[in-house]
C-alpha cells in the first residue's frame, strides 16, 4: 500500500468512527491542538484516558461488589469517567456514563451493574478503534507521509 492509499484508509476509518458515534467533535478539537511542537498530543491524551478509565472501571467493579453499596462513591467514579470521556471525545462511553448516573441516583444496584457492563463494553470498543487508528497513523508516518487534517461537515 502506498502512502496515498494509507491516508485514504485513515480518513475512511476516522470518518466511520464519527458516523458510528464512537467519537464526537471533541476528538477533532484534540487533533487541532496537535502540531509540530506537540506531535504526539492526541496519543498522549488518549493514553491517559485509557489508564484513567481502566482504574475507574476497576474501582467501580469493586464498589458495586460490596454488601452495602456506597452510591455516592459509585456516582463520583462515574462522574469522573464521564468527564474524561467527554474531554477526549469518546461519545458512546460518555453517554453510557450519563445513563449510569441516573441509576446511581435511584440507588438501583442491578441497573448499575448492567450500566457498568455497558460502559465496559463501550470502553473496550473505543479503545480498540483508537488503537487501530493510531496504528494506521504510525504506518503512514513510517512510510514518510503525514496525517491528513480531518474536515467534517456536521
Amino acid at each position, binding site marked *: 500500500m502506498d502512502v496515498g492509499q494509507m491516508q485514504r484508509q485513515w480518513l475512511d476509518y476516522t470518518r466511520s468512527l464519527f458516523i458510528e458515534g464512537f467519537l464526537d467533535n471533541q476528538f477533532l478539537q484534540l487533533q487541532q*491542538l496537535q502540531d509540530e511542537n506537540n506531535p504526539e498530543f492526541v496519543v*498522549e*491524551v488518549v493514553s491517559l484516558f485509557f489508564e484513567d478509565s481502566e482504574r475507574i472501571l476497576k474501582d467501580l467493579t469493586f464498589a458495586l461488589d460490596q454488601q452495602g453499596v456506597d452510591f455516592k462513591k459509585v456516582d463520583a467514579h462515574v*462522574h469522573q469517567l464521564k*468527564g474524561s470521556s*467527554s*474531554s*477526549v471525545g469518546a461519545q458512546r462511553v460518555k453517554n453510557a456514563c450519563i445513563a449510569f448516573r441516573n441509576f446511581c441516583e435511584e440507588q438501583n444496584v442491578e441497573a448499575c451493574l448492567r450500566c457498568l457492563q455497558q460502559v465496559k463494553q463501550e470502553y473496550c470498543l473505543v479503545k480498540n478503534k483508537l488503537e487501530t487508528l493510531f496504528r494506521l497513523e504510525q504506518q503512514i508516518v513510517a512510510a514518510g507521509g503525514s496525517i491528513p487534517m480531518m474536515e467534517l461537515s456536521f
Partner: protein
Amino acid sequence: MGLAAEAQFHVLAVDDSLIDRILIERLLKTSSFHVTAVDSGSKALKFLGLVEEEQRNEEPSFVSQKSHNQDIDVNLIITDYCMPEMTGYDLLRKIKESKSLKDIPVVIMSSENVPSRINRCLEEGAEEFFLKPVQQSDVNKLRPHLLKSKVKEVGEEDQVINLSRNDIKEILA
C-alpha cells in the same frame, strides 16, 4: 492597546482531572498564555500566597503600594467547579474575599449545565462560566478580561466585565 496586547499573560488553571489540566494548558498555550496548572483549590491558594511572599522577600525595604496583580503575577484564574475538598465556587469566594487577590479575574468551568450554579458563580464575581469540554472559542473570550485587568491597574474604568455578566444573565433568563 499595543503594549497590553503583546504582554504575556499568566493564567493559573485549577482542575483535579489530569486530562482536563493537560487540555486547558494546551488550549491556553496555543493562545500564547503562560500557564501554571494545579490540581486543587488549596494548591492554587498556596501558589497565589507563596508568590506574594516571595515578592515581599525580594523587596524587604519597599513600603510600596503596588497593585495586587503585579505582586501576584497571575492575570487570570480558570478553575473547575467540581473538585473534592474545595470546589471552584469555594475557591472563587476565597479569592474575592482576599484583599490582595480579589481583582484577579476568575473563570469557572463545569461539565454540568446547572443554571443556579452558573448564576451563583457569576453573582459571586466570576467573569465567565465555561461548559466543559472547553473549546478554543471559549479561551478566545479570555483576552478582553485580561486586558481589562491591565487597564484597571492604570486606573481607568472599564465596562467590559459588567457587560459580560449581564449578557450571560440575559441568555440564561
